[in-house]
């Protein structure tokens, strides 16, 4: 099924007889496998409104992300949260869409400073599981009118509603960027360096440790600002740092963002969101290759197929999500971190009210 308008989408959901697999570009195949008729949103495409002077964009959910990024680039603007492209890691073809990105709350290295997708998302329109069209938020960045269902929709993986339109707060693309790269260091030393860097006033907006064990710290801004901050940061941290600029810097961060280091490696990939200071310990317990991002707050772990990583980690404050795994593994292990009983009850209650018939990606999130 491929609706061409929000009304058609609403009608298709309303008349659904069984489970539907909600799909944008099909490039973020995450979650417990769902069987059902495919409902594809790519027919809902196009930019509804773009006001560069107000830093706002309203776009239909099925619009290819690449199209949006090209339009923004012409005005020297961008989505602040640097959404990950999962195609290489998951071995998928296709074009990522705006709706898919929002449904996954996809956020990249800049998350640590500019916030997640959910932080830049200022409005949504969606069709709930009964086929009712709902709007929430709007196209202004300061809005506390009623409950914030915008946040609820971000990262709900199409299980509460099918997104039809999304509004974003944008940011200008800075004139320059530079990345400081260290020698290979241990996870503990990496977290120490990244925390120290993120604690300076130099607005570090990327802090990662690649699969090669080298720490990368990114600064963006006006040209002179970047060179000043780079020098100040090096002075504050001490030690030897290689400096990457322009494309070399951009390429490094694209590889971190998309976890390219694990793309061609066999095995399952887990994504952990943790308290940065607890990261070294968790990495030690995981005993596997890792990429660390968000100053240590995000850990990508490459493990043997079918291994239950959570079992080795024990209890920790944060969560682990199985991002890449065979269908059998994703059916056998909870893909999303099981939540405490009262929280799970709230989630279940929301699902029951937004999709009472259980037709939208049922079971995908567990």
């Amino acid at each position: 099924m491929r609706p061409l308008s929000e009304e058609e989408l609403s009608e298709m959901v309303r008349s659904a007889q069984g489970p539907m697999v909600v799909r944008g570009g099909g490039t973020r195949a995450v979650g417990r496998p769902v069987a059902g008729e495919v409902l594809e949103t790519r027919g809902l495409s196009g930019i509804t409104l773009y006001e560069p002077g107000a830093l706002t964009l309203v776009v239909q959910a099925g619009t290819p992300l690449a199209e949006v990024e090209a339009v923004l680039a012409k005005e020297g603007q961008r989505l602040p949260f640097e959404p990950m492209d999962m195609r290489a890691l998951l071995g998928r073809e296709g074009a990522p869409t705006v709706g898919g990105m929002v449904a996954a709350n996809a956020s990249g290295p800049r998350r640590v400073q500019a916030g997640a997708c959910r932080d830049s998302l200022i409005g949504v329109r969606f069709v709930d599981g009964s086929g009712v069209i709902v709007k929430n938020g709007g196209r202004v960045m300061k809005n506390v009118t009623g409950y914030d269902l915008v946040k609820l929709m971000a990262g709900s993986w199409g299980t509460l509603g099918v997104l039809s339109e999304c509004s974003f707060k944008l940011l200008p693309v800075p004139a320059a960027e530079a990345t400081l790269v260290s020698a290979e260091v241990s996870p503990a030393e990496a977290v120490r360096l990244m925390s120290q860097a993120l604690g300076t006033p130099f607005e570090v907006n990327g802090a990662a440790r690649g699969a090669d064990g080298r720490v990368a710290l990114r600064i963006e801004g006006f040209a002179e600002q970047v060179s000043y901050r780079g020098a100040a940061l090096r002075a504050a941290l001490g030690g030897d740092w290689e400096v990457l600029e322009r494309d070399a810097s951009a390429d490094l961060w694209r590889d971190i963002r998309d976890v390219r280091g694990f793309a061609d490696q066999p095995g399952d990939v887990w994504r952990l969101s943790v308290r940065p200071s607890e990261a070294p310990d968790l990495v030690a317990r995981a005993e596997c290759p890792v990429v660390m991002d968000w100053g240590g707050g995000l850990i990508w772990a490459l493990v043997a197929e079918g291994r239950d990583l959570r079992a080795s980690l024990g209890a920790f404050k944060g969560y682990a999500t199985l991002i890449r795994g065979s269908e059998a593994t994703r059916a056998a292990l909870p893909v999303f971190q099981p939540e405490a009983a009262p929280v799970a009850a709230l989630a279940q209650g929301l699902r029951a009210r937004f999709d009472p018939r259980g037709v939208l990606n049922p079971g995908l999130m567990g």
Partner: protein
Amino acid sequence: MEMPAPNPAILAKRDRVLARLEEFLPTEALISDEAERRAYECDALTAYRCVPMAVVLPSTTEEVARILRICHDERVPVVPRGSGTSLAGGALPTEDSIILGVARLRDVLEVDYADRIIRVQTGMTNLAVTGEVESDGFFYAPDPSSQLACAIAGNIAMNSGGAHCLKYGVTTNNLLGVTMVQMDGTVVELGGAHLDAAGYDLLGLICGSEGQLGVVTEATLRILPKPEGARPVLMGFDSSEVAGACVSDIIKAGVLPVAIEFMDRPCIRACEDFAKAGYPDCEALLIVEVEGSEAEIDEQLGLITQIARRHNPVELRESQSEEESKKIWLGRKSAFGAMGQINDYMCLDGTIPVSSLPFVLRRIGEMSKEFGLDVANVFHAGDGNMHPLILFDANKPGDLERCEAFGAEILKLCVEAGGCLTGEHGVGIEKRDLMAVQFAPEDLEAQMRVKDVFDPQWLLNPAKVFPLDVSAARRAA
């Protein structure tokens, strides 16, 4: 403003409920005396008052849970209260409700500079959070103008903003985790010192839910390293259209000021008379502030003033000293006080798309004549959050009603222009009955379903946010 009639069945239970609370609450945590209860009859929206049945001031999450379990059991409505600084009536009680204040929950639980977080009990004031980390070079970014008094609990309930949110975002962008007690006494932990949610973003849903989904007792907040420095530039223009175009050009040029404040002529004059900030006599004034090292500030302000010059400013003054910066901000920061000296005023809080600024200001000017009430505009121009101040005389019969009618028309205009009813103050009771202007019945229904999940009996702050007729069936059930 209508409030639901008190339920006699609940009023009749008062003694029993109080007795159950007395069993475990220390004497100072339970206020039943009428004179003392009166202190809680309103928040900063003082036009509406009602003395609650009782006031409880717990000092632990466990006490909050026990209080809520009893109220849930007895079906007594509970109105959570931070510091009572809401301008929207968010903490206005009803006669048959109990006020649950967080004022005694004031501990700092943890500060961690490596992870850049602070965990506090939510009765702590906004400014005290920054005060806790300031000497170590950090700050908590959301800075509502009531920050000296307002509590973190209220900031979370209303998703408070401030003057610097163009760069740093509002509360929801700086809140990492909460401990929250649901109406039935269940304690939930959402988020923590890590980023984003394992499943649904319930933390994002809680923030801005106006105390209707739970009572937040502890919060983990993101703290940021203080910038090296900051400096404002002041610009005067001879029309608000030109000032608006200048804001748009600054943003398009790729500079991201930390704040862009706008004031119109009536506001400029009042502030100047009050604070002697040296503001020019002109139609529109912008204060643009940037951050960084001295050289970085020079680079950014150079670009900004270059853009401003293209719009023929009648005044363009880059602050040359710390003292001058303070003076420039003093005028803006005293806007509300200055207005208060002239008259009674009502402060609105709609947001509009920045591009609609000239149109909206022109219409407000026309409506001001129609209603025969003066308006002064002060405005977070970078994000479109307007604060029109309508001047009226509370002693003049009919003036308050006329002022409210005018205010409602301005908010409708904001929605019409593509904006919303409230940018940072919240709906409370003040904008409750205007919600249908912005939302279709299905939109409101979707929001009310969320409350059904968290508080099925609609006991927490029940008469707020949603128009009374729309929520009537749920409240009565």
